[in-house]
């Protein structure tokens, strides 16, 4: 395991997010893969104490997470900004039932984007989430991301809030391909 020294923060933010979510007793993780989430997904996939669900579309994870909470389990949902649009109506489930929802969303379509098809949903992500009643936080640095995720987890699981933490494209860096 890498150490969590602050000087390593820029490199190991996925590991620090993983540690925070483990500390918060998250036992279920659902995801649609994204390059920006690769390291965090792999950490969870190698953790046999966490139930991991690969999804065909992001909205599935919204319902799975509410079901988990009905059964007393904490869940986290990982996706890319393009997947937020797929979730909108399903988000009525955690909003209306006032169930915890923690979404970690890697952003596309906002910084050094090479693919124009990512632009419309990337530009609409925050407004779409807020329109349906999700609280949005946005992290532009690894240090911000770690701090925001920790308190967003508290607000979700302790105060029954529905929160998306947007991980800026500037933070993640340009997709390599």
């Amino acid at each position, binding site marked *: 395991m890498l150490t969590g020294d602050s000087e390593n923060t820029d490199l190991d933010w996925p590991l620090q997010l993983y540690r925070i979510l483990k500390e918060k007793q998250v*036992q*279920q993780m659902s995801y649609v893969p994204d390059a920006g989430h690769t390291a965090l997904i792999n950490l969870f996939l190698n953790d046999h104490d966490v*139930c991991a*669900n*690969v*999804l*065909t*579309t992001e*909205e*599935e994870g*919204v*319902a*799975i*997470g*509410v*079901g*988990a*909470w*009905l*059964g*007393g*389990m904490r*869940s986290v949902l990982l996706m890319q900004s393009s997947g937020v649009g797929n979730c909108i*109506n*399903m988000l*009525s*489930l955690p909003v*209306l*039932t*006032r*169930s915890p929802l923690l979404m970690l969303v890697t952003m596309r379509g906002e910084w050094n984007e090479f693919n124009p098809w990512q632009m419309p949903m990337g530009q609409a992500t925050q407004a779409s989430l807020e329109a349906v009643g999700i609280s949005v936080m946005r992290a532009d640095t690894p240090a911000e991301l770690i701090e925001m995720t920790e308190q967003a987890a508290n607000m979700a699981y*302790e105060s*029954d809030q529905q929160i998306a933490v947007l991980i800026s494209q500037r933070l993640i860096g340009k997709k390599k391909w």
Partner: protein
Amino acid sequence: MNRRDAVEKLLSSRQGALVVTGLGSPSYDVHACGDRDDNYYLWGAMGGAALTGLGLAQAQKGKRVMVITGDGEQLMAFGSLATIAVAKPVNLDIIVLDNQHFGETGMQVSHTGQGIDFATIAASCGFARTGVMTTLDQVDQLCIELLQPASGPGLFVLKIAAENLPRSLPPRDAVFVKNRFRGHLGFDPS
């Protein structure tokens, strides 16, 4: 087959199973058999019933979870069959009450009325148990089968008459239903 008779059979032999219902008539059918703390009714979030059941089954591995939904609701969650098959819960069964129509919205013919067969699809996805029931006697047999241990998820299609029965409305307060359900499992309202 009358949908209420079929659902009554399923529920009378639930033996502690947690029940999640899809929006519309399946919610009314389950409510008509008696409102209970261990019923979780959806009034919306179309396409969410089977997946809510999956999350619940993963959190409550010691209990059986039965999702009772309609063909229209399950059609909106077509991909969920792949997700559930890959997740392989051994304590989750999906019951599709299939009248082959969109009953809530004017009885338009649905995909299942035009040849789409959920049981075959679920089997090819890798569900451990699947079947199509067209009579109440077959539902009786299903009730026995559901109580046997399974090696993976199940999906059963119950072919029911296309008719809109008198509505039996579950509570619409989603927070109340959630807290009541969680209370049944020993979780205090947070």
